[in-house]
């Protein structure tokens, strides 16, 4: 990983909570309650700018990188059809032992700038062998 990427804003922009996207996610989860669950996890914050942009920003090797932790904090579920303002920032990149870690923070706000949810994501990249 690129230790110099700490602090970088990976993505910022407006996103629409597309009913079709929620339906696709609901279908992927595939249970009687998956519609409600989809409204909590409509986006994986770390990839809102696209997984390629994330990989490029972090200089991450996908063969050695894994998601190690993820925290959702919800103020409310997403609502189908609403537009949200999303941002994704690289909060920290550091080495611990022989591994490297990246912490990303994504925030989603409504049109009144009220926080809908935040996500903290930690990736680990194992040392090449």
């Amino acid at each position, binding site marked *: 990983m690129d230790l110099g990427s700490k602090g970088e804003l990976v993505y910022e922009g407006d996103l629409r909570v597309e009913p079709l996207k929620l339906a696709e996610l609901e279908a*992927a989860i595939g249970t009687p309650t998956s519609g*409600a*669950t989809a409204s909590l*996890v409509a*986006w994986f914050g770390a990839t809102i700018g696209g997984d390629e942009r994330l990989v490029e920003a972090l200089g991450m090797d996908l*063969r050695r990188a894994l998601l190690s932790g993820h925290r*959702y904090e*919800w103020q409310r579920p997403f609502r189908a059809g609403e537009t949200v303002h999303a941002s994704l920032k690289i909060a920290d990149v550091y080495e611990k032992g022989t591994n490297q870690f990246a912490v990303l923070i994504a925030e989603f706000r409504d049109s009144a700038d009220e926080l809908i949810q935040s996500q903290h994501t930690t990736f680990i990249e194992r040392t090449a062998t």
Partner: protein
Amino acid sequence: MTQLTTATSEPISRVQIARYAGAVGDFNPIHLDDAFAAKAGLPSVIAHGPLTLALILDLIVAQIGAEALSSFDARLRAPVFPGDQLTVVPSEDGVEVRNASDVVVATVTLSRRSENG
């Protein structure tokens, strides 16, 4: 307050993984391409971490509803493969998640809205 109970998901399928990839736009080949996964030392593709988390969350939402949750803090302990079933077992502050081989694949700390006023 509704107490969580042990619950188990259906087996995770490759189609489910592909559906999730399309829904969220995460096409990391480690989730879709066995040859790529093999180069990473894995026996097959693995489920997306966020899909695993969504399935865990869904087992909780089914019991207490989506509006009741204020936070969900997960540590992923082991990869999840096609065919795996996830079982959530209530713990002191959330749930422990095991596969059919009784391997802990994740631990989750939960906060409920009623706990935060």
